[in-house]
């Protein structure tokens, strides 16, 4: 019932969009049905799928590397105060720089190739996930560590069996937020510097004043962001069944 209630505003929004677009009768304001028709055409033609795959590949590789490294470094930082003290200042300096801020430097260093968007997504994912993981590990109640140690657990066993599972909540918050952010960043990077992908398709559509194509691309972005975030929510529920 609650899900059906959530659909009502979407249906009303589409209806208003359709009516206003019909009334405006302008290329700059395509109707919902025109956008759907264009989406079907772009899918059949293979253009949408090709560009979508290019973006998806970059997000998956960049995000996987960023998340893995972020969790690894964040875990070590959270569990070892000496490493934390060593790495914290440099991470605090680099973390606030927006991922797209690196684009000009990386274009000169890496050049315009597949590595560029992957590196941007990596940077976008690594720092927040590292930060959230480190915070999550540090936030675990020290008494759980005392209990594990008094029961004979080594430091590694305490980290792996007790601290890391208890920090999963915070780690997943980082993963969820950054999974969506990776899509937003890749689209922006492709719009500025990369000739393929959903972002690049949007820029080409803009130059041809194809508002319907732009909206199709935005819908793809919206759906992918939603799906990625939902995937991590699902994964969290599966890996944290103890969390009622």
């Amino acid at each position, binding site marked *: 019932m609650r899900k059906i209630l959530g659909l009502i505003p979407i249906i009303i929004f589409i209806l208003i969009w359709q009516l206003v677009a019909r009334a405006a009768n302008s290329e700059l304001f395509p109707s919902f049905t025109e956008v759907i028709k264009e989406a079907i055409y772009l899918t059949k033609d293979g253009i949408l799928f090709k560009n979508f795959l290019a973006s998806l590949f970059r997000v998956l590789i960049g995000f996987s590397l960023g998340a893995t490294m972020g969790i690894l470094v964040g875990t070590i930082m959270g569990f070892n105060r000496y490493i934390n003290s060593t790495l914290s200042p440099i991470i605090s300096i680099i973390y606030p720089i927006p991922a797209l801020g690196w684009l000009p430097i990386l274009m000169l260093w890496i050049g315009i190739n597949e590595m560029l968007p992957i590196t941007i997504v990596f940077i976008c994912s690594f720092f927040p996930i590292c930060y959230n993981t480190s915070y999550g590990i540090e936030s675990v*109640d020290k*008494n759980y560590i005392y*209990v594990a140690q*008094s*029961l*004979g*657990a*080594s430091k590694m066993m305490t980290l792996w069996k007790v601290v890391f599972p*208890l920090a999963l909540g915070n780690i997943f918050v980082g993963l969820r937020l950054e999974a969506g952010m990776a899509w937003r960043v890749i689209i922006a990077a492709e719009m500025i510097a990369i000739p393929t992908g959903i972002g690049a398709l949007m820029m080409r559509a803009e130059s041809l004043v194809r508002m319907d194509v732009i909206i199709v691309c935005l819908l793809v972005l919206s759906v992918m962001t939603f799906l990625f975030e939902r995937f991590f929510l699902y994964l969290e529920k599966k890996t944290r069944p*103890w969390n009622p």
Partner: protein
Amino acid sequence: MIDIKSLSNFILKDIDLSIKKGELFVLLGPNGAGKTTILNAITGFCDYKGNIYIDGKSIENIPIKERGIGYVFQDLYLFPHMKVYENIAFGLKINKKTYKTRVDKLIRLLNLERLVDRYPYNLSGGEKQKVALARALAIDPKIILMDEPLNKLDYNTANYIRDEFKKIQRTTGITTIYVTHDYLEARILADRIAVLKDGKIEQIGEKEDIFYYPKTGFVAKFVGINNIFEGNIIEYNNKIAKFLIKNSKIVINIKIDSDFSYRESSLLCIHPEKISLNREPKEDNHFLLSKIIYIKDRGPLLDIKVHIKELDFDIILAKAAFSLENRYVCFSSNVPYLIQTT
């Protein structure tokens, strides 16, 4: 078994304790007295000066994980991501290849069979308590430390778990230090008791000594002797001393066998359960009460506060022995107990 010498830190002040093998030793005291800090020092969770020996060996250089101490924390800290079985087996998985037999034995001992596949969030307070105890016992510790483990349980569950624990402690003979602020709990469980106040030991001894012969006013008050009066002995004849309570005209007869320097100011303690209410004056000490201030119903017992001349007295009576017609507060001269304050 456990010898603590001159233990000091930010809370503790020069603590000396010696706990025998197989003993159930209770640390009793109010919040902030340093009870938990002693447990943390033994386990290695806090810094301290002084020495702690287990079986004659200093534990200073023994890593926490090798000390063989089972610790049941006040808030239990069951691992929320592990089911009951995994929680109990946690210490064993690390140390032994075959742990199943031991875990199964503990599960049977504590009647946890139907709970093994549950996560801690799905357990009641009493069940969590039993799992925490099983987890601490699973590693076959030399010593078990329990930090106010029952204080969040309801009365009946706490009674049940306490009895179960005492049975297990007696069966296994495991040396136990049990922390509580509840003197009734200490009375039920302890072989010996140390009463702590502000990081210092006020008194240490057999539980009967603590409850019937407290050495300080604080201990007397803490173990439930509410009738404590300041004053001094004004006369001593035939082993009977007359004690005048300060700021009153009430004189209490006290039987004193040994020599007593009766000029000194003292505290007089009268156990509330050793006072009776009678229709006629009886015993060496009897006073007509002027009014009953309150009567609290405690099941088979009554807590009664009465007013006699200038003073209030607490009395604990069996319900069957109470009648409103009984107006005389009576107690034998053997009952009052003196604590010298100077």
